[in-house]
């Protein structure tokens, strides 16, 4: 398995660097902290490749074993999480009963329903403002619940890219190397995913 990972400018750029040192030194609490931090994302990624949740759980478990076994070889040329997610995607791919699904790049679903524009491309049903409502903590929590659910309903590759970019905060370059997709595909998937989530929030706020 050789995966080219984008290089870090420095060790100190990696927020997980200190934890990794503690894991190496034998601190199980540090390991649990890492598991806690990355398991949900790993599950979401794995689910995109394998037939069911049980297999996804297995893949995640195997990934952590692989992570521990590879610890002494890890030189910190990429960030810990990029390395971790790469191990996961490789395992999930080999565990996946179905082949890597084709990228839904040909999917020309627009960001906004075309019926909301006139023939000149100008809004006829413009977006109703709602961003101010997010300042309210309770509303924000409720909406975060909707986003979480909607994220689960996104097509696999969109969900993966949105999870890695917007939840984990990976760079587009890191996402491309973890998922082995091109920069252009990455951006299309991100765009479709984010557009759908925005649409969902607009509908939810409109209902409230």
């Amino acid at each position: 398995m050789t995966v080219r990972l984008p290089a870090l400018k420095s060790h100190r750029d990696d927020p997980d660097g200190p934890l990794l040192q503690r894991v190496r030194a034998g601190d199980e609490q540090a390991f649990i902290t890492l598991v806690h931090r990355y398991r949900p994302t790993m599950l979401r990624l794995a689910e995109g490749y394998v037939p069911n949740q049980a297999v996804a759980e297995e893949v995640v478990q195997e990934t952590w074993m692989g992570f521990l076994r590879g610890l002494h070889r890890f030189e910190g040329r990429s960030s810990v999480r990029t390395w971790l997610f790469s191990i996961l995607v490789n395992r999930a791919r080999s565990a996946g009963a179905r082949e890597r699904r084709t990228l839904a790049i040909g999917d020309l679903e627009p960001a906004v329903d075309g019926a909301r524009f006139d023939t000149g491309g100008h809004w006829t049903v413009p977006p109703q403002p709602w961003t101010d409502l997010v300042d309210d903590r309770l509303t924000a929590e409720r909406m975060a619940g909707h986003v979480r659910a909607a994220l689960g309903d996104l097509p696999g590759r969109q969900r993966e890219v949105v999870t890695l970019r917007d939840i984990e905060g990976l760079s587009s370059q890191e996402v491309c190397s973890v998922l082995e997709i091109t920069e252009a595909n990455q951006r299309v998937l991100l765009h479709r995913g984010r557009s759908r989530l925005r649409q969902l929030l607009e509908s939810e706020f409109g209902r409230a």
Partner: protein
Amino acid sequence: MMALLHRRSREVVCQQAVELVTDYLDGALSRPARRRLERHLRGCPHCTEYFAQVRATIAMTGRITPDDLSPQMRDEFVDLYLRWREGEGSA
């Protein structure tokens, strides 16, 4: 007239603007394309609102926190780790 038409055809309309938001936020637009988009945004409150909503959506997504590990799973992972540590020690 021709010049006006030409300029108009290069202008971004709303339906195009909403497809450019991700490229824009990632800094992936060419400089002229970015300028055309920004010019459109300055004159279009709806698209400005739309872009604000996409930013807010990204912020909301970023707020999703990991689910807590169940005590049972936590034990399983501690176990996994301890076995690894023992293996390392004996290696």
